[in-house]
């Protein structure tokens, strides 16, 4: 039986064992470097890099939109892997469930931003707030899908039950991604419409560096968010366990009281 043979003992144990100073330090380091990276990206993106010959200033959104979309898919990928690992009996561990939940939550935040920046890109370019671009449509569907996933996670219940239910839902949600993307892009190819091709305008010199920087910076921000949300989930789990000890004591006291009732 693995150390997490049953939920309550494991939660109490791992809540404490897993937040060693080292993990926290790495996370805050990522956060800091990420923050610096973001500031740099914004500074470079908005002021330093030249406007694009073809798109003018709109190209500056290039330093936000694609990296947000990348982080969203990265977050969902991590959530999928953690869920799959949780479902695999040998590697079943409540910490994996917390990673899956934390990553999915970050994913939803990134997806929201991707959608907003995507439509802000579309408005001046094609005059419409929303285009049925395969990537954008898939992202929108993912947004709704994972909102459902998060709603499912918030339902009360046993940690083990909730973890298993969420892991299965995450599995199903993630398998839907390729199917959606494939069907939407096929659907779009039937009647050609505006699609986002980041690579269309040739990217050179400082633009390319800023783009790379934005990917790295926002990915680090994602890592920090994941770690932060994970530690919060650990505390929440411990909060549940904390309450449990008192509930057990109260329940046992009932035995005493009923004895008193009987005796009197």
């Amino acid at each position, binding site marked *: 039986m693995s150390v997490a043979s049953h939920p309550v003992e494991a939660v109490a144990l791992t809540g404490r064992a897993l937040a060693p100073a080292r993990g926290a330090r790495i996370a805050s380091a990522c956060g800091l470097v990420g923050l610096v990276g973001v500031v740099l990206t914004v500074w470079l993106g908005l002021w330093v890099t030249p406007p694009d010959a073809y798109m003018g200033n709109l190209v500056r959104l290039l330093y936000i939109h694609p990296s947000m979309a990348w982080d969203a898919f990265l977050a969902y990928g991590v959530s999928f892997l953690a869920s799959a690992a949780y479902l695999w009996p040998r590697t079943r561990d409540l910490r994996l469930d917390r990673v899956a939940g934390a990553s999915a939550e970050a994913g939803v935040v990134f997806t929201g931003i991707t959608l907003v920046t995507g439509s802000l890109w579309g408005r001046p370019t094609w005059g419409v707030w929303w285009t049925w671009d395969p990537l954008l449509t898939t992202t929108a569907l993912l947004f709704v899908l994972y909102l459902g996933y998060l709603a499912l996670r918030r339902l009360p219940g046993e940690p083990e039950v909730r973890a298993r239910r969420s892991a299965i839902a995450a599995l199903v949600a993630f398998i839907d991604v390729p199917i959606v993307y494939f069907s939407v892009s096929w659907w779009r190819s039937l009647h050609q419409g505006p699609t986002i091709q980041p690579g269309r305008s040739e990217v050179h010199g400082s633009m390319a560096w800023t783009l790379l920087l934005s990917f790295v910076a926002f990915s680090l921000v994602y890592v*920090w968010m994941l770690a932060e949300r994970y530690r919060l989930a650990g505390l929440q789990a411990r909060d549940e366990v904390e309450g449990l000890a008192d509930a057990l004591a109260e329940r046992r006291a009932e035995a005493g009281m009923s004895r008193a009732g009987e005796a009197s």
Partner: protein
Amino acid sequence: MGALAVATGGIGYVQGGYVVALLTLALYALSLVARRRRLSRRLPSAGRTAPLSGPRDGA
């Protein structure tokens, strides 16, 4: 918004995009830290685990 874009060649949209992105990330990050602080204050010292069976209370 539309008029703004035409006048400044879309810079309005770009700034809007940056503001939305950074603001959302900042708000989310702050909420995480705040919730963690509030919870860790409420939970007693990290050391205390909750052994399940609990001490035999004279049952």
